[in-house]
């Protein structure tokens, strides 16, 4: 059916107005994504009223362009300032910023762009060819499967512990403990609120992330600027463009990360942050240079970006095939469709083939619009690295405050970023990595909710977690990862030390 409809769909998408909509939506999305605290979801929600008077196709193209642009835009500030614009790019921040500091901002941004496009394109192809099959797998996911997926995600903590597993595990536990603050997700019991109404809903992800990564980085910059004399500046160059050979070397890595992104993205309620962390972890395990991760690795950037952008198309799968929005962004898109009198669901592809296939082809075109806009703008973005830190740091601090406040219009969240900033600044000084805190915080609630709902389902029988095929799959790879991590990080160094002692 697609082949018959393709000419009319393409004619519709490539009309002058729709082209304008695509570029405008992409520019808005990238800008919103790049501002700390303003997420892709917020961008889609902000532009929703503009679509009320539009036809269905341009309205959906606009929202999809903002969504994809928002996810990509978040990586720009992650690379340049170690300030992830959205949670999706938190995994890019360490390596991207390390490259920026070495004066390779431009090549890091280009890797971000190309890998994002790669992940986005594969995701569209999956949406086009495998949507019903992937939706079927997603439907199989119940609480026990989510618990096992979260457990698998938590094993990543070991590989991002920076060589000290004990400190990494402590940081991960602290992250999970932070996710326990507020109302208990099952019973509504109150935990660790200390009588504060602000803590009832728990700590919000975006302010926590801004504090841990951005504010801590601001304090780090302040420390570095402590010894500067008047008029002295700290600026680095933008470096050379990315050699295409380096990009093509990442093909396998990007395909693997895109598949992870597609599978995670199709699951309701997971999100692109989880996809990018799992992708980076998988890339590190199969890398020839795992020691470079966290210190400026192009592989890590490629994995994270392909993973998080692959989520964008896949997140549409449950929406288009089942009528179930997987996250807030797709829920807003569902709203846009309903406003236009269209109800997605199992019959969507047969009832509205022009709209259904139009969205998919539109998503594919959006990836190339992203490539074009990003390609033109990257050189300009990279120049941010040339702005002296004395000028940039205070302005970023103000943006962080706005970003934290804008999420819930809450002054409490601005205080939270300072506290989390101090945590993110002080813990690495004592060898505790901050990434495990974020992973624990993101996955903690999913893990606890999955376990407890699973036990309710099985009337207290724990074997539910080892008797379902998807659970067994996740537990098996989690145990495999744990085993290989313990071997690589603990047993092998001990063995090597023992051998050196014997030789000595």
């Amino acid at each position, binding site marked *: 059916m697609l082949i018959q409809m393709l000419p009319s769909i393409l004619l519709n998408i490539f009309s002058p107005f729709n082209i304008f909509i695509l570029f405008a939506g992409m520019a808005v999305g990238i800008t919103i994504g790049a501002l700390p605290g303003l997420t892709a979801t917020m961008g889609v929600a902000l532009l929703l009223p503009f679509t009320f008077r539009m036809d269905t196709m341009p309205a959906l193209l606009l929202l999809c362009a903002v969504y994809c642009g928002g996810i990509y835009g978040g990586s720009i500030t992650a690379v340049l300032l170690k300030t992830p614009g959205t949670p999706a790019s938190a995994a890019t921040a360490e390596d991207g910023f390390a490259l920026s500091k070495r004066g390779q901002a431009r090549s890091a941004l280009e890797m971000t762009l190309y890998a994002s496009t790669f992940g986005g394109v594969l995701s569209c192809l999956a949406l086009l060819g495998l949507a019903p099959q992937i939706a079927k797998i997603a439907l199989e996911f119940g609480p026990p499967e989510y618990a096992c997926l979260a457990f698998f995600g938590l094993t990543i903590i070991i590989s991002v512990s920076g060589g000290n597993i004990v400190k990494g595990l402590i940081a991960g536990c602290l992250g999970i*403990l932070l996710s326990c603050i507020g109302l208990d997700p099952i019973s509504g019991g109150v935990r660790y609120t200390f009588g504060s109404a602000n803590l009832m809903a728990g700590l919000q992800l975006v302010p926590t992330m801004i504090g841990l990564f951005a504010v801590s980085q601001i304090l780090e910059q302040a420390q570095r600027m402590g010894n500067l004399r008047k*008029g002295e500046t700290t600026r680095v160059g933008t470096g050379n463009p990315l050699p295409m050979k380096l990009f093509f070397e990442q093909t396998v890595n990007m395909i693997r990360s895109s598949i992870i992104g597609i599978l995670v993205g199709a699951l309701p309620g997971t999100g692109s942050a989880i996809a990018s962390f799992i992708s980076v972890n998988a890339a590190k395990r199969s890398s020839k240079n795992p020691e470079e991760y966290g210190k400026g690795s192009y592989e890590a950037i490629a994995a994270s970006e392909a993973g998080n952008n692959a989520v964008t198309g896949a997140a549409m799968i449950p929406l288009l095939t089942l009528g179930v929005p997987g996250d807030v962004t797709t829920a807003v898109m569902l709203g846009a469709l309903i406003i236009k009198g269209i109800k997605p669901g199992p019959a969507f592809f047969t009832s509205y083939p022009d709209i259904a296939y139009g969205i998919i082809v539109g998503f594919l075109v959006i990836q190339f619009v992203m490539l074009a806009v990003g390609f033109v703008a990257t050189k300009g973005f990279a120049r941010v690295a040339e702005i002296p830190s004395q000028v940039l740091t*205070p302005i970023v601090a*103000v943006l962080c*405050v706005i970003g934290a406040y804008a999420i819930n219009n809450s002054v409490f969240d601005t205080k939270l970023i300072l506290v989390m900033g101090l945590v993110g600044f002080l813990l690495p000084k*004592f060898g505790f990595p901050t990434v495990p805190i974020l992973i624990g915080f993101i996955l903690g609630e999913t893990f606890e909710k999955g*376990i*407890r709902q699973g036990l309710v389902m099985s009337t207290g029988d724990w074997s539910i977690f080892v008797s379902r095929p998807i659970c067994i799959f996740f537990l098996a790879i989690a145990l495999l990862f744990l085993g290989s991590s313990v071997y690589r990080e603990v047993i092998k160094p001990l063995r090597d030390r023992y051998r050196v002692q014997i030789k000595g």
Partner: protein
Amino acid sequence: MTKRKADCIVSAMLICFSVAVLVYTKCKVIVPDAYVSYGIGPQTLPTILGWVILILSIFLFLSSLAGKTEEQKLALDKQELKIILIFIAAFAVYIVAMPVLGFYVATALFLIVIFHVLKVEKKLIFILTPGTLLAVYVIFTMICEVYLPSGLFV
């Protein structure tokens, strides 16, 4: 301070913290029986985490006492410490003052102070501060319609 000494202090603090978590969870997270299903309630995960942190911290403390961690020095000179403390204090005052003075006034004061502390030229401060505020107003207030705190002033 050597890294070994720092590890000892941090692990001792973590031991105290995990004990506090365990005691608080036991005494203050009041859980009616109806909240506990199949032996698992709101207290379960925090209690497990408290024990895990306690065990790992004791391990860290003992291994740092035994001298298994590196003897590397933690570098932070006086000038660096001074500027960080000023930055943290200014940031804290900015956040507390924001609902009282209003976002724009508090931000202007914060930027002027921090630019001055970071030794930015005066001429540049007078360009950058209003420039930043104008950009924030256009992007956030006018375009994105984000309602920033308004206090006694703006």
